[in-house]
């Protein structure tokens, strides 16, 4: 599996760019992944999403789907698409250092 340099540390990611070990994630890593996927700067709303995703995944054992994020994070569906225009379904989890969500919704 590829190893990439994010925020000064070597981090293992899978072929699609998701972190292999979510404990290697730090806020700085999130910033670096965000840049990689075309988000220049993570704002407060991004952080709301990331914090929710990480907390929810820790509780549920699996990364949340988009509908779950929009219902529970305080960031609605429309805004999720503005925050992650290249596809919030994948990118919210990726920037949060979580695996690709398994749900279809």
């Amino acid at each position, binding site marked *: 599996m590829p190893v990439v340099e994010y925020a000064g540390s070597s981090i293992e990611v899978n072929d699609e760019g998701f972190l292999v070990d979510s404990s290697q994630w730090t806020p700085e890593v999130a910033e670096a992944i965000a840049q990689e996927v075309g988000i220049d700067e993570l704002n407060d709303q991004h952080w709301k999403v990331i914090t929710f995703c990480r907390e929810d995944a820790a509780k549920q054992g699996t990364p949340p*789907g*988009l*509908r*779950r994020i*929009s219902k529970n994070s305080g960031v*609605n*569906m*429309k805004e999720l*698409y503005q925050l*992650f*225009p*290249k*596809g*919030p*379904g*994948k*990118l919210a989890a990726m920037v949060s250092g979580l695996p690709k969500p398994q*749900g*279809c*919704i």
Partner: protein
Amino acid sequence: MTTTTIEEAATTGQAMEADTKPEREPIERVSIICSKGTLDMAYPGLVMANGARMMGIEAMVFFTFWGLDIITEKKIDSLHVATVGNPSMPIPTMVGGLPGMEAMATKMMKKQMDDLEIPPVREFIEMLSDSGAELYACRMAMDMFKLEEGDLVPQVDEVLTVMDFYDKSAGSQIIFI
């Protein structure tokens, strides 16, 4: 005629896989035609369109014929599962035709959807609209069913002719359901 042993074929196959792993063009836009209005045929199109948007793929949905039920204000909340004429129904057609069977099958399906966190159709359409998916109704089917734009849910962007449909589908992969 050349003959290839199974071993040879296997090796060539493996070599092909390793050497020429194809660089495929990612899908950029999908155009989904929903032509059926039963609950079991409504969801596939909606899920496919929403899935595309979640990946950052542009999506448009064109509702035609019975598919118009999915976006018709009076029908959207009462789509049902077809228990007759549905070859995948695990009950005999004669039983499926008995009073109450459709209602029961519909109730069961809605419950299963809910358990999987799949939203009801109306909420699904709102979600699609929020995601930036384009929703279109078919002009000809609208005329056939004597529907006006006011009969449709507000999330519908436009009523299109089939020629408009192809214009809007430029660069799309077209999926018919």
